[in-house]
């Protein structure tokens, strides 16, 4: 994900307070690999959703997305499913931080949900910090602090320290 | 011609004067029992297959939740709720998480001379109080619950004549593992294992339950010991008066298919290697093989009573188990749990680093609590060590006495308990 990129993707609409027990229920967290957990993502809320997510889709949610447990499998699974970015009115603190740690682009923007329908395309302009709906509605969002942007571009904290510790790719 | 105690019980239950081995009888049942591993199959048959479903004797039908308590999956809870609903609907007795099924039956219900049928293979435990106890499957159980009786082939009896006295650090558990090592896990198929002889005067109810319970692992239909003064004292202690004519004894001129003789002075601490109960080895031999262990378990209907907990506490007192070893202790019933707290045993276990869990089948059942991962090694006072019994198909279970389990957890490898001079001798 480069700094000034412009990309678009299919919208998936989620409500307020989507907690991390919904994103990945506890009983699947001892599976040895993130890949194996993906098919259970969101199962308590929408059991059919995980199987229908395609690479490049965009999650659009209400307030307090990712509240609850600090389980980092939640953002890791969302990234593994190929979600390009998560746009929510507000994020729970630990989820937001874990998302950055995993290089998952998370954008806070209010009032988007009323202007998009599930399945519609949405364009994200990281240069102008703009969200553009198929209906032509343009919504701005706050600039992501450069320190956090670096993390996302580096692909997350692991890549960041790999470089720092001189680990050969 | 005289009859054995088992033949007398079956004759009485079938309303016959006398019975012979091989004869088929239709026996009236005094107690029926089923647990959360088997009941849902019976309830399904009762509700969907039977044309005229009704429960013959609800107040003699006991439902016990003990195998997966507290429930580890939603499936288990659904199955357990079927059981709870049925017991409530038909007025059967229900124990919900109060302890292991056979322990509760002996503690609260079964009397000498009675006939007990249960959907659990360790029902021979009832022989400790001079009753006939045999295990059946869910369909048999359902039929028995509806008709109140069951067809049984009268088994020939093998007599185990016991003399002498167990030495310090040696327990009834070591004796029965030695016997099964001798006769093999099919050594008593379709037969009764009757234990008797002068040694019995020094074997209390706990020891007798250990012997009769594990008879199932030699394939026996039932295990039994003629009731005596020790049994009547035990029954009085739990508020049950029993008439003398229920204290059946084998006639002096009864016929035994075979008689085995055991001198208890010669018994050594014994274990069963994975993956068979008859795969016997002396603990002193295993000690030399430096077998590292991951987990120890003290509990089960065979070896989870206050007597075992006293033996384990005597060894663990003031010491600590190896840090990377898990020792799980499950009192066999609520009564044992309360007694262990009052006698300060629980505190000793907690100081030693053990886990003291709720009264249930626990690691012996191996499907809910204390489940082993691949490659892990368990030493257990449970009833079975079959492949994968306590979790992963690639895990290993050694069976042994509570003393051996406690000693092994102190050393992190299988160890002979006698060096801890088990002050708690019998």
């Amino acid at each position, binding site marked *: 994900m480069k700094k000034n990129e412009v990309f678009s993707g299919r919208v998936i609409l989620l409500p307020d*307070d989507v*907690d991390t*027990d*919904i994103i990945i*229920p*506890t*009983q699947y*967290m*001892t*599976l*040895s690999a993130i890949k194996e957990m993906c098919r259970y993502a969101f199962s*308590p*809320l929408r059991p059919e959703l995980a199987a229908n997510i395609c690479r490049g889709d965009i999650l659009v949610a209400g307030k*307090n997305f990712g*509240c*609850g*447990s*600090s*389980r*980092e*499998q939640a953002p890791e699974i969302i990234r593994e499913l190929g979600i390009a970015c998560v746009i929510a009115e*507000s994020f*729970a*603190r*630990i989820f937001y*931080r*874990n998302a950055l740690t995993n290089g998952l682009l998370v954008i806070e923007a209010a009032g988007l949900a009323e202007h998009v329908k599930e399945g519609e395309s949405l364009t994200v302009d990281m240069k102008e910090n703009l969200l553009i709906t198929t209906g032509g509605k343009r919504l701005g969002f706050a600039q992501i602090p450069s*320190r956090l942007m670096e993390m996302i571009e580096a692909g997350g*904290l*692991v890549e960041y*320290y*790999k470089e720092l*510790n*001189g*680990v050969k790719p | 011609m005289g009859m054995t105690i088992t033949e007398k019980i079956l004759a009485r239950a079938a309303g016959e004067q006398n019975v012979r081995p091989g004869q088929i009888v239709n026996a009236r049942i005094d107690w029926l029992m089923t647990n959360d591993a088997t009941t849902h199959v019976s309830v399904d048959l009762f509700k969907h297959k039977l044309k005229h479903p009704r429960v013959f004797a609800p107040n003699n039908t006991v439902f016990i939740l003990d195998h997966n308590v*507290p*429930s580890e*999956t*939603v499936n288990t*809870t659904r199955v357990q*709720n079927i059981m709870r609903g049925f017991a409530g609907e038909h007025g059967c007795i229900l124990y919900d*998480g109060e302890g292991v099924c056979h322990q509760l039956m002996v503690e609260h219900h079964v009397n000498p001379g009675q006939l007990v049928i249960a959907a659990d293979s360790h029902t021979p435990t009832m022989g400790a109080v001079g009753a006939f106890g045999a295990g059946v499957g869910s369909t048999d159980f359902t039929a028995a619950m509806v008709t109140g009786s069951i067809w049984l082939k009268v088994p020939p009896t093998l007599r185990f004549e016991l003399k002498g006295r167990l030495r310090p650090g040696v327990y009834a558990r070591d004796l029965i593992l030695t016997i099964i090592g001798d006769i093999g896990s099919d050594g008593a198929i379709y037969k009764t294992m009757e234990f008797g002889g002068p040694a019995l005067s020094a074997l209390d109810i706990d020891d007798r339950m250990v012997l009769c319970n594990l008879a199932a692992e030699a394939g026996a239909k039932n295990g039994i010991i003629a009731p005596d003064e020790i049994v009547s004292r035990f029954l009085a202690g739990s508020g049950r008066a029993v008439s003398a004519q229920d204290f059946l004894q084998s006639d002096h001129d009864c016929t035994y298919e075979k008689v085995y003789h055991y001198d208890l002075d010669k018994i050594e601490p014994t274990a069963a290697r994975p993956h068979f109960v008859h795969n016997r080895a002396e603990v002193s031999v295993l000690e030399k093989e430096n077998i590292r262990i991951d987990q120890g378990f003290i509990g089960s209907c065979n070896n989870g009573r206050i007597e075992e907990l006293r033996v384990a506490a005597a060894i663990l007192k003031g010491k600590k188990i190896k840090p*990377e070893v*898990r020792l*799980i202790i499950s009192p066999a019933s609520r009564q044992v*749990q*309360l007694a262990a*707290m009052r006698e300060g045993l629980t*505190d000793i276990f907690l100081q030693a*680093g053990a886990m*003291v*869990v*709720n009264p249930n089948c626990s690691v012996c059942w191996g499907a*809910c609590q*204390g*489940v082993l*991962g*691949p490659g892990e090694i368990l030493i257990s006072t449970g009833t079975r060590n079959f492949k994968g019994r306590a*979790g*992963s198909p690639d895990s290993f279970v050694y069976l042994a006495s509570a003393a051996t389990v406690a000693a092994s957890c102190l050393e992190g490898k299988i160890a002979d308990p006698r060096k801890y001079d088990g002050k708690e001798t019998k």
Partner: protein
Amino acid sequence: MKHTLFEKILMRHTGRSAITPGEIIETAVDRVMIHDFFTPFCFAKFEEMGFTRVWDPEKIVLVYDHLVPTSFVSDSRHHKIGDEFARKHGITRVHRADGVCHQLMPELGYVTPGQIVLGTDSHSVTYGAVGALGTGIGYTEMAAVLGTGKIWLKAVPTIRVEINGTLAPGVYSKDIILQVLKDLGADGASYKVLEFGGGTIRNMSQEGRFTLSNMSVESGAKAGLIEPDSKTLEYCKKYISPAGLKGLAADDNAPYEKRLEYRAEELQPLVACPYNVDNVKPVKAIAGKKIDQVFLGSCTNGRLEDLGIAAGIVKGGKIHPNVRFLVVPASRDIYREAIRLGYIETLVQAGAIVNHPSCGLCAGRSNGVLTNGECIVSTNNRNFYGRMGDDRVEIYLASPATAAASALEGKITPPRAEADGTSIDLQ
């Protein structure tokens, strides 16, 4: 410049004489805790990042509590990986079956007032009850902390929660935090710190205070701090001297973004209803709802005082036949002390199923999971979809007193049934 307790702790660690919300600082960490659920993930990231040794083995604590005793074949792998990492890096503080991580950390002195302590669990905020900055982070971030001993933190505004007066009988610290969650909402303290104070807090036992800090995260809070005092000193006496508390107090009229004021007398027994922690109602409002199970335990309400309150209520009574009453003491020492005081015997005689200290059902994987259509009153801290088995199990979060009263009646019941005058007395 006036500062909150949170800002004072950051200043103490960075040597700065002032700090304002929004500033990002980097600070050393006094202690970290990793529990068994995340050992495989955390340590794999640590290796992947190319770290070869931990920054300081003395400052790392491993606690096995979510998967203890094991329920599935895959569980012990998490413990084996933890043991291996501890052996390789000389970590000696490994607790394999001693109780819940957030109870052990303060109980064993691994957290003391004024420290910064991180855990791979969102309820690490519990440590705020002894005046320490405790907060939860993800396992990748923890891997980086293991390698560097440092973390970046954003200074955030503080919300002051002031409670004065005396709680009515039957009303406990759990009811206070449920009231706060009702007023703030599940994200009311997101990117903020809660600071609890006032007369009611000063009179509250140290154990009661842990419940407040523990659930501050349920409103999104980064930390839930309580000014350490003589009670904290008594609780941590084996590990700190009075000097350790110097300077650990907010300045008078420190800059709070918001103040919540409560009169303790006006509070009543509350319950968080499915499926959100801020969906809080008076217990009276839903009294009478049939229940199938009660869980007494967790790092929120599994302490000695909680077991004592429940024992007082069930003493001489019998748990309702339709209810499974599961009790899990929060730590080994609490379990021993509760046995010595007779609490466990009373609970078992009433029909409770008492288990070895661990997260128990609160971990939400085994240990008493329920099916859709079933209903449970529980003293832990979360009631989301699927948190205790099937995805629509109804979980009602309440105090140990409400839980015990409900277990007796077989339906949701307030601890002091004022309505019909029958009072289920406490001790």
